């Protein structure tokens, strides 16, 4: 196939340079009307290749590239928006065209124009083959249309066993559900910044022995907990709650002289 491409490529470069026929232009115009009907550039190329009326194995990729580029040009002239992948293909085909037309540069790395063209032809042939295969498949006799399964499956009343079932989709969606639930998990407070009432109670029990005189609640806060507001609030709340607990137990007295005034504590004798 490679040899074939080499010969063809050279011949065309000599005689057919940029000779886009009127028929091709007309064909491109007709296709543009239907641009939404194509499933991507490969599908469009396959449709264009049919105008060559040859076996896909003998198709002229150079000619095809010209047809495609003509199509894109027409679309531009008509100010039609083409999806990006159509333009990517156009750029690639323009590159391929230049490779096919220029004599091969022995210095240059990478695949030759003929190799690239052969691969594109292979892709088109394979896509066409899959379409034909799909058509043959759908033309087969089908269950429930041409042949039939048992209408009545057996039912016996005597034994009744319950089984549970689930489909693969259920399973996968169930998993996705649990994994995405992370975002909903109830807020768990960062324990680094929480001074618990249990901690405060333990601390206060140790301290009240020394609290013979009225002292401000804030002076009972643990060390290092007043440097940031979150920690300070937590420590204050816990210490206050612990103090109330100790008042209830009869170990402590509390007072506050006015609304929002400092809260004071002392040991109860």
């Amino acid at each position, binding site marked *: 196939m490679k040899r074939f491409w080499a010969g063809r490529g050279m011949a065309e470069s000599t005689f057919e340079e940029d000779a886009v026929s009127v028929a091709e232009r007309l064909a491109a115009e007709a296709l543009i009307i239907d641009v939404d009907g194509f499933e991507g550039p490969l599908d469009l190329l396959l449709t264009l290749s049919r105008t060559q009326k040859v076996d896909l194995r003998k198709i002229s990729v150079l000619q095809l590239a010209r047809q495609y580029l003509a199509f894109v040009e027409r679309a531009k002239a008509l100010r039609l928006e083409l999806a990006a992948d159509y333009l990517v293909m156009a750029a690639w085909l323009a590159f391929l065209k230049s490779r096919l037309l220029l004599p091969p540069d022995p210095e240059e790395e990478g695949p030759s124009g003929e190799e690239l063209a052969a691969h594109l032809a292979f892709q088109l042939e394979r896509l066409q083959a899959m379409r034909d295969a799909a058509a043959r498949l759908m033309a087969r006799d089908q269950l429930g249309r041409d042949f039939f399964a048992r*209408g009545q499956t057996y039912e016996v009343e005597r034994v009744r066993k319950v089984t549970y079932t689930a489909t693969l989709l259920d399973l996968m969606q*169930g998993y996705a*559900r*649990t994994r995405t639930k992370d975002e909903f998990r109830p807020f768990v407070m960062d324990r680094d910044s929480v001074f618990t009432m249990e901690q405060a109670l333990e601390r206060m029990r140790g301290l009240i022995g020394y609290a013979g005189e009225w002292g401000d609640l804030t002076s009972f806060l643990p060390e290092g907990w007043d440097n940031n507001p979150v920690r300070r609030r937590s420590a204050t709340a816990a210490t206050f709650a612990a103090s109330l607990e100790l008042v209830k137990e009869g170990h402590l007295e509390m007072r506050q002289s006015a609304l929002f005034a400092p809260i004071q504590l002392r040991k109860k004798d």
Partner: protein
Amino acid sequence: MSEDIDPKEESLFDAPLMAEQERMIEAILFATSEPVTLRELESRMPHGCDAGEAMVHLRKRYEGRGVQVVKIGDGYAIRTASDLGFLMQKETVEVRKLSRAAIETLAIIAYHQPVTRAEIEEIRGVSVSRGTVDQLLEMEWIRFGRRKMTPGRPVTFVVTQGFLDHFGLESARDLPGLKELRSAGLLESRPPPGTLPLMGDTEEEDESNEGQSELFED
């Protein structure tokens, strides 16, 4: 019609051969869930068929076979021979959909195996009821794996061959990851009620991929 037409030629335009008619009623009785009357049979067969006569042949053909053509009211149906009823016990299963809790638990076991109960609870965010695990064990979709080498040496759960068979998987490794589920359009197209669309949370994905390959290394 002229007298001298060969009766054989006439038959080309007549009803199909009796053997054909017998095939026809056989196929209809097989595919139909309810008993079928002779009238219904004839209305579905080509013009001129005699379902009654075909039925006589068909019933004879099935005499002594594993299934029989029986008359039920005005209709006919194919039924299992009564002496073979014992073979049919498996057909009487009632199939119910697995509960959401069970599906989620099962999914977590499949994706994270071997996994402990505590780990399942951590992932689901709720405690796993005993009944759920028992049900999955009883269905033989999960079984106990090796104990974890962590304090308390908790038991782990893994999925069984029966699980793989049911879900048409060759191994639990073939289950698609979150990223693949999403790119295959399996998540967006029908989001289960009450779920947020999946965010492009790549960190989470990496985590789950990592976890998975780790778990499946043997």
